[in-house]
């Protein structure tokens, strides 16, 4: 009996040792979420990534990395098959059982806060930089994009009377638009314009009447919904948009979905698109 | 042994049965006759304990019927319904085995009883066949065999030697699907069991077939007892025309109940 207890204790100690021994091995990262993958690329640490989720498509080399499925529904064994040392993800990485299982298998799981604005973006970049031992690159990147954003803000004509709407997807029944607590909302704030759907939270379907009542001057459309200028024209004829100020002039702007829907180091580019569109509106 | 006193049954403010009394002793064969929808089957279901009467009392073996535990009652009275639906592919022998499922006996003993009874009812050639594929008459015989098996206690005796004292068999149209040969054979067989003490209540429209076997006839009309007693007393032109609304002809037969015809 005594021997058995000792044997079990020994096995346990050996297991614990084995877990500890792993920390020294070179880093192999699974990146879950498009923003994080893009930041890792921007920090020049892409060679550490062994696999990503299905939303990690930018920059283009990231699209050819092994894909583990949607980041909310990753398979534990699928992740483990790449023998990662780290998994970096956001709060919505799941399912719920994934994280304890990965931790138990000795994978270090880092969950970063879900961010929706520029402030959060700089925080995210610094967090990723710290995790990858790339603090220097991170601060350089943050400095660079902060400067770009500041310059853009300076160049804009502040005009809070202008209202805008971001359309993620459209159907005859209504439009799915970006409400509060979204990246488009943050872009609108930084561009100094008002979001018509600010009283909605997250991405929601807004009915045609409310859109007409909100009467946006400018409408942004996620680029994955509109392929070609004809599509943009036909969207102007959407029953909800036709009668709005934006619809009458067909002031519709397609925005790169991956820039506008998620936070990425391309935030300044997205902001530039928004501000430019506002300025164009003034000229007319 | 079986005593039913003035039972009535109402369902949704409609009177189905009213003031019906019936008393049975071992070996009795009661035939219930009456027009369609007069409450014959309902009466039988009351006797079986499937329906609860509204008023009146039913006593079976000196005990109130509703106080009988279901499992114990099943060994004392059996019921052969008018239509026998089997919803899955049961084999004949499996169905018969089911009647012995509550008995404490070995497989060999129950098999022996099943075979003896099956020979008697001429259904042993149906072993191995899906009950649903049997003809109506074959199925009716199988179900009667099942009911009789249910009443047999576990013993090593042959089923034919057994005394059915105090047991009650309820038959609802037992011969409706049987052919000319088996109608008679079935009634003779039931009578044989009656002689061993089995009490039978039989609902039938085939009066000419059943009445000669009856020790007692109960004539129902609109839920009431129109006449009760020995066949020769009940089967009169007056009663029959009261019951069925048409006047039949009676052809007297020596030593038996008159033959009823239009």
């Amino acid at each position: 009996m005594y021997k058995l207890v000792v044997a079990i204790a020994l096995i346990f100690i050996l297991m614990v040792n084995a877990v500890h021994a792993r920390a020294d091995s070179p880093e192999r990262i699974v990146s879950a979420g498009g923003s994080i993958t893009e930041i890792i690329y921007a920090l020049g640490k892409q060679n550490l990534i062994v696999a990503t989720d299905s939303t990690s498509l930018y920059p283009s080399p990231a699209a050819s990395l092994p894909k583990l499925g949607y980041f909310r529904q990753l398979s534990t064994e699928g992740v483990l098959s790449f023998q990662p040392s780290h998994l970096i993800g956001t709060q919505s990485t799941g399912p719920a059982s994934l994280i304890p299982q990965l931790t138990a298998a000795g994978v270090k799981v880092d969950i970063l806060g879900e961010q929706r604005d520029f402030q959060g973006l700089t925080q995210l970049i610094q967090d990723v930089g710290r995790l990858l031992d790339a603090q220097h690159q991170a601060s350089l990147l943050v400095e660079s994009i902060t400067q770009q954003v500041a310059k853009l803000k300076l160049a804009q004509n502040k005009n809070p009377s202008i209202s805008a709407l971001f359309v993620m997807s459209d159907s005859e029944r209504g439009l799915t638009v970006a409400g509060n607590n979204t990246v488009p909302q943050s872009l609108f704030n930084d561009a100094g314009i008002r979001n018509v759907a600010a009283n909605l939270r997250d991405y929601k379907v807004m009915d045609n009447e409310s859109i007409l009542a909100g009467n946006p001057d400018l409408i942004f459309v996620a680029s994955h919904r509109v392929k070609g200028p004809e599509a943009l024209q036909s969207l102007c004829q959407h029953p909800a948009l036709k009668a709005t100020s934006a619809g009458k002039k067909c002031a519709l702007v397609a925005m790169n979905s991956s820039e506008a829907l998620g936070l990425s180091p391309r935030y300044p580019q997205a902001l530039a698109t928004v501000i430019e569109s506002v300025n164009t509106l003034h000229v007319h | 042994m079986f005593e039913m006193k003035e039972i009535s049954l109402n369902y949704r403010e409609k009177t189905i049965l009213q003031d019906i009394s019936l008393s049975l002793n071992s070996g009795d064969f009661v035939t219930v006759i009456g027009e369609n929808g007069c409450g014959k089957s309902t009466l039988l279901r009351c006797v079986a304990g499937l329906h609860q009467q509204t008023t009146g009392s039913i006593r079976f073996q000196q005990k109130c019927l509703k106080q009988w535990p279901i499992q114990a009652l099943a060994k004392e009275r059996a019921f052969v319904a008018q239509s026998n639906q089997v919803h899955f592919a049961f084999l004949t022998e499996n169905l018969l085995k089911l009647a012995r499922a509550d008995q404490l006996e070995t497989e060999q003993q129950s098999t022996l009883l099943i075979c003896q009874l099956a020979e008697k009812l001429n259904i042993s050639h149906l072993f191995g066949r899906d009950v649903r594929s049997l003809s109506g008459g074959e199925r009716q015989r199988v179900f009667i065999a099942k009911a009789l098996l249910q009443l047999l206690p576990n013993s090593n005796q042959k089923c034919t030697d057994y005394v059915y004292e105090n047991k009650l068999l309820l038959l609802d149209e037992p011969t409706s699907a049987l052919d000319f040969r088996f109608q008679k054979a079935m009634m003779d067989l039931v009578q044989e069991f009656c002689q061993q003490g089995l009490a039978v209540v039989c609902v039938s429209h085939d009066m000419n077939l059943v009445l000669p076997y009856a020790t007692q006839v109960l004539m129902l009309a609109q839920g009431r007892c129109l006449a009760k007693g020995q066949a020769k007393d009940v089967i009169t032109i007056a009663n029959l025309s009261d019951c069925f609304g048409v006047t039949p002809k009676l052809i007297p037969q020596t030593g038996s109940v008159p033959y009823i015809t239009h």
Partner: protein
Amino acid sequence: MYTDSLPVTLQAVLAQRQKKYERGIWLTAGLGLLLVVVGLQAGSVAQSSTEMFQLVLQKFTSQDLTHQQTIHWYIFSELRAPRMVMAIFVGALLAMSGCAMQGLVRNPLADPGLIGISAGAAAAAATTLALINHYPELELAGQYLIAASAFIGALLAVWIVLLVAKTPMGTAISSLILAGVAVNALATTHIGAISYMANDDALRQITYWTMGSLGGINWQKVLFVGAVGVPAIGVFLHLRKALNMLALGENEAQCMGLAVTKYKRLTLWLVAFSVALATALCGIIGFVGLVVPHIARSLFGADHRYLMPACGVLGAVLMLLADIISRALFPPLEIPIGIVTSAVGAPFFLYLLAKGKGQSSYV
């Protein structure tokens, strides 16, 4: 006319049939064991038998494992083993529930979902998922909260159905089915309303939940299901005689000495409990409860004495198979197991229906 040889012959036939069915059940169980061995090797991380054997040997002799071996051992013992055991339990419970349900309503097209169990579970789980999404402080207990609410939702749905279907003469099967349809519709509406109000995150989670998965299974959950599932399987086996009698109709069953009302209620609650348990932990896994009893009936006949245990082992085997497919088909992705069972089950069911047209020998 009477021949003494008949009982002997019949007894021999019966004994032979019993032996055949018992052998069939053991054979199926053996197949299940084989699948467990296969399943322990299948998945995103390739593990050969020799590698696995060596791993077990090393573990047993408490030798030091390399880094990679430790991960392999973890995958083997903490990810694959518990989900295989869970697949066995869930498959057996769902298939036996289907068998009991079909026996009870005397219709081979019945499914446990008929009385609103799965829909009730899904509605409750969707509500909880949306609530967790809205109040992130609930996230900590999230998994257990979802399972508990799904379980309660399933039982609540059945309770409503039974309440509506209750008549002075006992529970009528026809009103049971109609009430089930109504409760199903109600639950679907509820899910629709939740989905409409929920944000993108919650919507995704609700969708994934309803697809069913064995992904999040750990030993703790297996132990829990084992502790309550084994007695449930025992009660299912106890129901065999009652279901046989019920196959002849309720009146007939009562006349043969079955307390019909009691057994009907027992069967319904047992089915509700088992399906609720499986659904709460694994989400909705369709078609097992419908198709497995069909296959079992065509192989083992309609007698519940053999049919019920056959459904148990066959359900476990099919669930193991579905789990292996879900893991091994597109690594490193994992297809939700509910999709696998429906994708395999629905066409197979259509095939059975087409084949059985005109001759319904297997039901």
